[in-house]
């Protein structure tokens, strides 16, 4: 109770980290719902990793070009990381989605390879970067500790934009995902709506990776949506329940991590996994399987 009062206090030192975690917790599952429905779960695994490779490369770029970035966490470094993250996310999602549409080869193989190569590349790039040793590796591991007001505002603004777009264009995005042929017959521009959805997924993934790291981003993209799918009866319940599970877990995970001095990212993801497992078992028991 005392810990709860502490983290809810307006003067709480890590309040930006808490707010950012909860924001990401609420927003990521809303995009994750589309990944689950479009059977792009593996993409939800690969994208945060590819996005973090973009961060690593973008942050190393000044070093390779002979510039010096002295201030870790400065606005310019953050902006650079954001550009790297969004560029890699969007390029990857567009290429992977295009290959998926062509229907050739093995999608799981492509995504698995993309994931493992991206992970290895991140480590290689950062191992040769003196700044990586200091703090960037922490960021990529999901150590949600040092989040500035600027980071918080940027995260909130981006995620608000994503939420607004998902809300405004829900009909079109749902129609294009559920029945592409029907969307074409109704003269919807399916390429535009697909691209918009990918842009929203890319933006969310980039922002989440940048704010809380790929581990949490991956966890919050998929697990709340998968957990909610077991209980929801319709699309509205599915979306709201997934978002609620994400937001509540982010808060609870932060509370547990703060109380027992654990890293926030892994705590959140393990908590999500436990909730998913409990939900799955309960659903099975209720169905009498």
């Amino acid at each position: 109770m005392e810990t709860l009062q502490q983290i809810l206090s307006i003067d709480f030192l890590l309040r930006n980290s808490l707010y950012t975690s909860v924001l990401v917790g609420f927003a990521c599952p809303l995009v994750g719902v589309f990944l689950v429905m479009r059977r792009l779960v593996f993409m939800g695994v690969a994208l945060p990793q590819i996005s973090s490779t973009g961060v690593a490369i973008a942050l190393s770029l000044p070093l390779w070009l002979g510039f010096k970035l002295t201030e870790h966490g400065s606005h310019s470094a953050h902006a650079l990381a954001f550009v790297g993250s969004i560029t890699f996310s969007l390029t990857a999602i567009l290429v992977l989605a295009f290959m998926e549409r062509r229907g050739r080869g093995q999608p799981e193989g492509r995504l698995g390879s993309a994931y493992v190569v991206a992970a290895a590349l991140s480590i290689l790039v950062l191992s040769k970067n003196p700044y990586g040793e200091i703090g960037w590796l922490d960021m990529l591991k999901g150590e949600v500790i040092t989040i500035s007001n600027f980071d918080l505002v940027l995260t909130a603004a981006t995620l608000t934009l994503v939420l607004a777009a998902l809300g405004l264009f829900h009909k079109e995005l749902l129609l294009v995902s559920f029945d592409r042929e029907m969307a074409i017959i109704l003269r919807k521009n399916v390429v535009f709506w697909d691209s918009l959805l990918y842009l929203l997924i890319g933006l969310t993934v980039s922002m989440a990776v940048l704010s809380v790291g790929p581990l949490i981003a991956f966890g919050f993209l998929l697990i709340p949506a998968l957990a909610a799918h077991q209980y929801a009866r319709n699309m509205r319940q599915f979306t709201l329940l997934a978002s609620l599970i994400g937001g509540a877990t982010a808060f609870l995970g932060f509370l547990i991590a703060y109380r027992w001095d654990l890293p926030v990212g892994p705590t959140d993801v393990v908590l999500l996994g436990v909730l998913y497992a409990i939900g799955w078992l309960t659903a099975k028991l209720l169905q009498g399987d």
Partner: protein
Amino acid sequence: MTELLITLDNLSIGYNGQPVLTGLSLSITRASFTAILGANGSGKSTLLKTLLGLLPPVAGRIDIASAGVPLTFGYVPQSNQFDPVYLLTAFEVALMGAYGRIRVGHLIPPAERAFTRECLRAVGAEDFSHKRFAELSGGQQQRVLIARALTTRPDVLVLDEPTAGVDREATTAVLEFITEICKEKKITVLLVTHDFSAVRHHAEKVIWLHEGKVYQGAVDELLTTERMAEIFEIGMG
């Protein structure tokens, strides 16, 4: 005078520029009921997809308009093509037919919801409209998809084997309902089917795709024993 809605002139259809069927010339008039017959792989679905704008024609000309105004198609696909991962209710699926009329970013007007309920009621799907689409039987899903097609307020209703996997009684009920409502609302029907009996009872005109050739005519003329024997003899060469 009978109004021409769809005209195909020396049309070639196929996939990726490779023709499946060539030299297709035919016309379809308003409020007519045309059945498209043919064995699997004869090009029925390719023709349907080309008419619906889902596939570009390989060559030739296709006119789909009424007095210069593009036609609205109501499409009833086979129900087994939908992924059960979507937690959509039957009502939500039927409502999608109205999406073509609702402006981007706007809420669904209550009038469209009421019209969707009306369409569901008309096809006898009102009782299960609150249930999950994926959990309905094949026949129930077909009714919902027909309601969705009607919700588009179509000029042309296109049905791709709508009674596949549905029992005889339900098939008759569905086709009788379609015939009735289309006559009443002057909707043109294009029905792809293998069911000769259904074609004889409901269609006025037949387009028969057989081994790369297209036969067309009135049901009474084309589906006679002599004419069918002739077609198959030509086919067996």
